[in-house]
């Protein structure tokens, strides 16, 4: 409850209130862990997910959406990814493999509201099933910036971090990332209503078949088609082009930042660890001193503690990196929406062009005036006009094609227009979410830095006291 008091609730907005420093320092104390378990808000109940401080910003982003219009899934259901387990099983080619499964727990919101301590429903899902869900969403909602999954393989690692997918730290971070994905999807005004999503959360068996039955894979745009559209489209919406450019920038900057941060972490690790050598040499030296011995010995212990402190510091920072990664992947989702626009626009242009060409042919045929060069026109000139029956047949055919063409153009116009409209709404929503989330991530990072400085001061002050006693 204490945590909530520092949040000011304004309609449509969630922000950290004025006592931000107080909030963070309270969050950092273990006693608050109990408090952070449940955040009660008027009308809204957040899930009792294990709220470590690092995900507060992300959660804040999530809750902002919750207050928007539309009943999002999260309003009605509590969702979390509680655990991860290793399994052995046979894969598609009947070979033994080890993989990790994640426990997805759900609980109806009213149960929580009434305080009923009902056991949650749960089922196990593999990463590949999450991927399948996301791919389905991507195809089905091409005008939505679909939330990304946590990375498949560990990237941007610095030397101490393991690149192994089975590494427990990696699995844990992935668990958190998967939960975050579900929360984002379940709180999205459009995505949260999807039946397949509901199915994913509730029905363990047979879900895959249901997804495949939707035939979404057939609807997926071929890469070739999409690429071709990007190059050949003539009049894409300017805003979308800007947005696409922005997504490139976002991707470039976040990946640069992640790489630079990993290098910095590597170096910082080295600096701290070398100080551990002081611990050893002070200890050895203290053995040969009379009055200086005690002071040196204790100081040495503090140097050891200093060297060891970097491990926790950098582990904490990994969560900041995870937040950046989410937006790195989000940039790609944003670009996908822009590319879809290019595709729909291109197809509209193609259809229009086709229609124009057909109409032109019709006109030429009916009036005999050749406006543009055409082979038929040439042969007519050279070899004379064709027979009137043939001409009539062809005219009829053209008229049919024109009618089809007009329908097609009509369809494509609608498709393109709808996409533009809906995508624009979601891109706007995304931008607001991104600004909020990243701002809070940066503040969070600053808080981490302050904590690191305080620890450093503490350790060196302790060592100094020992030196003074020498």
């Amino acid at each position, binding site marked *: 409850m204490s945590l909530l008091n520092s949040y000011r609730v304004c309609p449509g907005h969630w922000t950290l209130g004025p006592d931000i420093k107080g909030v963070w320092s309270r969050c950092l104390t273990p006693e608050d862990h109990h408090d952070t378990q449940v955040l009660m808000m008027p009308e809204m109940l957040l899930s009792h997910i294990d709220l470590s401080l690092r995900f507060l910003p992300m959660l804040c982003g999530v809750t902002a959406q919750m207050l928007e219009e539309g009943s999002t899934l999260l309003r009605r259901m509590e969702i979390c990814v509680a655990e991860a387990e290793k399994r052995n099983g046979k894969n598609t080619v009947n070979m033994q493999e080890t993989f990790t499964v994640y426990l997805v727990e759900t609980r109806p919101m009213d149960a929580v509201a009434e305080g009923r301590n009902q056991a949650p429903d749960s089922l196990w899902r593999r990463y590949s099933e999450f991927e399948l869900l996301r791919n389905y969403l991507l195809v089905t909602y091409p005008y939505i910036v679909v939330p990304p999954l946590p990375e498949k393989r560990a990237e941007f690692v610095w030397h101490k971090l393991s690149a192994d997918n089975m590494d427990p730290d990696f699995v844990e971070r992935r668990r958190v990332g998967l939960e975050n994905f579900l929360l984002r999807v379940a709180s999205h005004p459009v995505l949260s209503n999807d039946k397949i999503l509901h199915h994913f959360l509730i029905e363990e068996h047979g879900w895959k078949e249901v997804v495949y039955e939707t035939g979404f894979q057939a609807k997926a745009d071929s890469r070739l088609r999409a690429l071709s559209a990007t190059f050949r489209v003539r009049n894409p919406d300017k805003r979308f082009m800007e947005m696409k450019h922005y997504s490139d920038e976002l991707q470039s900057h976040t990946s640069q930042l992640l790489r630079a941060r990993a290098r910095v972490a590597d170096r910082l690790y080295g600096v701290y660890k070398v100080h551990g050598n002081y611990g050893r040499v002070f200890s050895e030296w203290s053995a040969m001193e009379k009055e200086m011995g005690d002071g040196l010995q204790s100081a040495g212990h503090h140097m050891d503690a200093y060297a060891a402190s970097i491990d926790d510091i950098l582990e904490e920072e990994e969560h900041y990196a995870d937040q950046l990664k989410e937006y790195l992947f989000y940039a790609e989702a944003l670009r996908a929406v822009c590319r879809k626009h290019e595709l729909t626009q291109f197809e509209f242009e193609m259809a229009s062009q086709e229609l124009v060409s057909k109409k032109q042919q019709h006109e030429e045929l009916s009036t005999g005036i050749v406006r543009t060069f055409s082979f038929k026109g040439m042969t007519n000139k050279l070899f004379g006009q064709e027979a009137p029956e043939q001409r009539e047949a062809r005219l009829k055919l053209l008229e049919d094609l024109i009618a089809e063409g007009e329908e097609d153009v009509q369809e494509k116009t609608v498709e393109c227009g709808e996409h533009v409209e809906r995508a624009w709404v979601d891109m706007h929503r995304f931008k607001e979410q991104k600004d909020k989330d990243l701002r809070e991530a940066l503040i969070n990072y600053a808080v981490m830095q302050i904590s690191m400085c305080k620890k450093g*001061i503490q350790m060196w002050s302790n060592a100094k006291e020992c030196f003074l006693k020498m």
Partner: protein
Amino acid sequence: MSVGAPRSLASSGQKPIAEILHPLSAAEEQLSVTVGGDKEAGLTNGTPVETSSPASTSSLLNRLQLDDDLEADIRDPYAEAAETRDLFVTVDDPKKHVSTMETYITYRVSTKTSRVEFDLPEYCVRRRYQDFDWLRIKLEDSQPTHLIPPLPEKFVMKGVVDRFSEDFVETRMKALDKFLKRVADHPVLSFNPHLNTFLTTKDLNKRQGLALLSKVGESVKHVAGGYKLRARPAEFGAMGEYLDTFNQKLGTIDRIAQRILKEQSEYLTELREYGTVYSSWAGSEDELRRPLEGVGGCVTTCCGALEDLGDGMSQDILPVLREYVLYIESMKSVLRKRDQSQAEYEGRLEAAVLRKQEDRTPMPLEVEKCQDKVECFNADLKADWERWQSNKRHDFKQLLTGMADKNINHYEKCQAAWESLITLLQDKQTEDKTSETN
């Protein structure tokens, strides 16, 4: 003590260091003879120190009773010296001199004193490194039984180190200041007339003196050579061992400090790059521009603080560590000299005893002189050792707390930067809030 040494000539060698007090500050029967008597043999020329020599038995007893206090004082000369110090020296104000023949740096040496040995209460002279070197050689040769503090390195490789860079001059000047202060604080060395000359004479005409003295120095070494030491008294052996181990530890600490500097410098490089990424990202954002620029700015501030830390370490910490290595070298050479004089004495004694047994000639004077020399040497050395240990403790306490302070200071700067960023962003947030709810 070796078995072969005759009992009649006892030496102070058997007792542990802590119990043996300097002949000039406390009394022991054997040593009082030396103090009261001949002052030539290895003792300092000139006036006695402030803790006056025990001329009478009653003052002898007083000395003994004050043992504990004196012991404590010896261990912390700074406490004693602070109250009774009457000679203050400072080295500062480096200036470059360019002449047709050479370019060199001089330093101002200022003296304030109430001692009668000095004509004036204040002096101000300019000295160059050569002059300090001259002083040190003079002190070494005129006070062979004492530990002379070390000077900073004489030779620097041209092309590798810039002899006229601010940092180099600053570091060297601090070391010279330390050297002079240590000499001035020494109860025996500070009364050396060469020091007096160094501090007072306007123009040190030393070239002739230098040439002459170096020859004398050679001859002294020559005489002492050729004698082999039978058995070194345990405490001097312990000193030697301590110095060797301590040297090792210092070497390790120096290496660690260097390694840290290197790692920090590489960290700094990456950190700078890291900061620029934030700034360039800020360029493509609107709402996020301020926070991103803010973070980039903080990172830059931290880079500055880190740079200061590195500079501080290499200017203030590392040179002092290295200087102690030189100090250890000086101490070891004094120990060697002591060994030599003991060896000489033992050799001569043996020869004399043999002759006595043969033709009943009395103990030659030179043997007694040798004994005196050894006794004095041992006593001086022990006192200087105590003083050195005490200095070392004080110096390292200062050094290490200085290092801790620098690190604390660095973190404080960084913390302040990040905290002000949060305040800034927070204010912006409340600003936005009020503007939206309006």
